[in-house]
């Protein structure tokens, strides 16, 4: 073989290698990657209820209206206009014309009617449909033409239009069933325990201001990775583009390495709270039931807890002292007149003294001489709650209260707080996704609610203030006047602040990490914090070297 031939072969190989590298780089640059923490349990958007399935629903589902996570306003999507009428029972939609599902099936009003009927089918047990179940009777859908329809529910639903943010429209006719979508992406591949691959929906309806079809990114790869350490290392090595929800420790760690990676969007909707068991039939001694039913006792315990310290130490400063059922992140519904309860052990002791308690040798005792000692259960393995419990233990010792902290596995804890009621106090959190109290707070604040944790499923309200809350919750749920609804729920928040059936401790911040390669990312406090504007996100030119 001549020298020229060798050079030629070498040149061909070099060219091939360069082309392959360029192609790979281009491919890589067109792919956004992030992690799911478990396999999605379903691809049916109506059955999504855990984080992974909801992520897929958000990325693939087309909705009639979308809540803008930044402004918290409702914006038109598949519906260009809508009107709520009939006292909140009926909603009429005007749909966009000429749209198609990802497989090319045309989108019409029949698809919306089909989705609603499926969602309200009692045999499907759709978690999305639960928020729409307002009373006995069937949901009526009336299709006027291909672009107009109305839906009538058996009873009024407050905040009806906002609920449609969660309803991904399915095709009535497509043979691909739920895999035919109207959102920015469609699922093209799934390897259990490994990844879910989404590809740009070729028929997605949105375009940018220059007329270019969205989304900008060609594919989204969702790596299934339950280990948070590995997820963080992947981000640091450029293997993924963001982490949607970050722990305080990881946030600080990443912040030390590269401050531009992390984003603290401020206080989120999530809260951490403790409550005392006030169930009359619980197997607790009568004197303890009397303590827990006393408003003065609950207020005193609340004042003896240093919330500022909880936020600063347990959450590394990435949390704020909580005020009540809603956090300040809920711009419209939060009652701005209320402030967090201040840490004041003198005031706490004074309340306790007025309520018949007294200090004896550094131990708080009730009027019958029982030393004030109770247990606080929380779920094992949650380091923030375990830290908070240990801090509360030290705080309460300052007013002579002995607190025994018990960590239980989650099923045992749930058994105790929902069935046997064999517990004294419980520390848990509430992950809140909905802004409207009608969907997120109804089951918590109605005395008949199952999530009315301190004394659930009451036949009649046990106290006058619970009766007043019931009345206010019904009032806000049946009114269509936003101001009246707000006034009613403001009062609910005031009663919750005064009575403290839940002692709200902190609202944690929404923390995220985003690679500098991802453009037009604006993390917010509402879920999904980072990719809420997925169709507008693009990738920079820096190709991740480890992909």
């Amino acid at each position, binding site marked *: 073989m001549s020298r020229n031939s060798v050079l030629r072969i070498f040149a061909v190989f070099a060219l091939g290698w360069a082309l392959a590298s360029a192609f790979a780089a281009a491919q890589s640059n067109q792919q956004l990657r992030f992690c799911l923490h478990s396999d999605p349990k379903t691809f049916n958007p109506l059955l999504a209820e855990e984080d992974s399935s909801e992520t897929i629903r958000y990325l693939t589902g087309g909705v009639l209206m979308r809540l803008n996570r930044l402004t918290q306003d409702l914006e038109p999507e598949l519906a260009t206009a809508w009107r709520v009428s009939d006292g909140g029972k009926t909603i009429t939609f005007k749909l966009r014309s000429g749209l198609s599902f990802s497989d090319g099936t045309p989108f019409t009003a029949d698809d919306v009617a089909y989705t609603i009927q499926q969602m309200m089918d009692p045999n499907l047990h759709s978690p999305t449909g639960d928020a729409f179940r307002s009373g006995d009777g069937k949901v009526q859908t009336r299709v006027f033409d291909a672009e107009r329809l109305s839906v009538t529910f058996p009873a009024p639903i407050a905040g009806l239009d906002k609920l449609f943010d969660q309803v991904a429209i399915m095709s009535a006719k497509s043979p691909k069933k739920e895999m035919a979508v109207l959102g920015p992406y469609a699922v093209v591949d799934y390897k259990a325990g490994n990844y879910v691959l989404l590809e740009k929906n070729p028929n997605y309806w949105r375009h940018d201001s220059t007329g270019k079809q969205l989304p900008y990114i060609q594919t989204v790869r969702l790596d299934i990775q339950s280990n948070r350490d590995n997820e963080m290392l992947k981000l640091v090595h450029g293997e993924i583009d963001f982490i949607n929800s970050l722990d305080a*420790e990881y946030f600080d760690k990443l912040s030390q390495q590269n401050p531009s990676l992390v984003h603290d969007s401020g206080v989120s909707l999530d809260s951490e709270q403790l409550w005392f068991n006030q169930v009359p039939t619980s197997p607790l001694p009568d004197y303890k039931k009397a303590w827990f039913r006393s408003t003065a006792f609950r207020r005193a315990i609340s004042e003896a807890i240093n919330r500022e310290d909880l936020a600063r130490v347990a959450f590394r400063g990435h949390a704020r002292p909580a005020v009540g059922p809603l956090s300040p992140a809920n711009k419209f519904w939060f009652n701005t007149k209320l402030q967090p309860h201040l840490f004041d052990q003198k005031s706490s002791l004074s309340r306790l003294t007025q309520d018949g308690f007294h200090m004896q040798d550094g131990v708080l005792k009730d009027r019958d001489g029982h030393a004030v000692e109770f247990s606080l259960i929380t779920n094992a393995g949650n380091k923030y709650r*375990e830290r908070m419990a*240990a801090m509360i233990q030290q705080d309460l010792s300052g007013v002579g209260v002995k607190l025994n902290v018990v960590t239980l*596995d989650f099923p045992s804890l749930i058994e105790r707080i929902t069935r046997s009621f064999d517990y004294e106090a419980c520390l848990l959190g509430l992950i809140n996704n909905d802004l409207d109290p009608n969907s997120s707070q109804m089951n918590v604040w109605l005395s008949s609610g199952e999530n009315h944790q301190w004394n659930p499923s009451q036949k009649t309200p046990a106290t006058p203030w619970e009766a007043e809350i019931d009345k206010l919750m019904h009032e806000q749920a049946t009114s269509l006047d936003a101001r009246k609804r707000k006034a009613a729920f403001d009062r609910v928040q005031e009663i919750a602040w005064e009575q403290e059936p839940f002692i709200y401790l902190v609202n944690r911040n929404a923390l995220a990490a985003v690679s500098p390669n991802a453009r037009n990312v604006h993390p917010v406090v509402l879920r999904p914090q980072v990719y809420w504007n997925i169709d507008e996100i693009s990738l920079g030119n820096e190709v991740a070297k480890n992909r």
Partner: protein
Amino acid sequence: MKWARLFGIGFLIVVTFACVFANFVAPSYAHQFRDEPDAAPSRQHLLGTDDLGRDRFARVLYGTRVSLLLAPAAALVSSLLAVLIGGTAGFLGGWVERSVMAATDLFLSLPWLFLLITVRALLPLNVSPITSVAITFALLGCLGWAAAARVICADARSLAHSDFILLARASGSSGLRLLWRQVVPNLRPIVFAQFWISIPVFILTEANLGVLGLGVAEPLPSWGSLLRELQSYSAITGQPWQFVPLILFVVVVSCFHLVLLEQESPA
């Protein structure tokens, strides 16, 4: 290997002394210095502070005390149960032995950790941390006899058929007297070995429960709760002093084995 045994014994004595007299050499293990969470080692806090600002040196000493004092107690309970069950079954033989060993096999096949978690969840909630740790180790002792019982049963069986037992029977000794006077004393070496082996096993089991957040209750430290700090690799990088409880744990468990190794070595 004599030096290894001496090192093991010496180290265990030093650690035991340090733990017993922890009150004199370290500050409170529970007090939270909230302005200094996750602090680096200093003159005030020799091993820095934990995530709540508690002195880590004090927590290591008190945690070691909890694990080192209660694990032998649990090992004693399990060894006594093993002698009672395994020794009697091996000595009596026949259907008694077969039934007891079948029950032991069934007990061994139970998923230990889940059993412990379940039993612990059923216990009363309002107990002090000291009581809770005693309950945890008592549970370990009550549930950990089965493997030792099998070994002791086999030894008791061979003893029951030995010449000196035959001679004792011929001399008119029988029943409990024979068991107590002749068999049990001859089981002593194997019981001692089982007891010694159980100690690190119980320490490890408590550590496993602690890592799951189900071990000793706050604010009392134990090795399990101290090792939980190491769960997140990313949270500990750059803070090598956090590894001290792990190193101490490994060295102490190794020392138990070194002491036993010498015991088992042929003369």
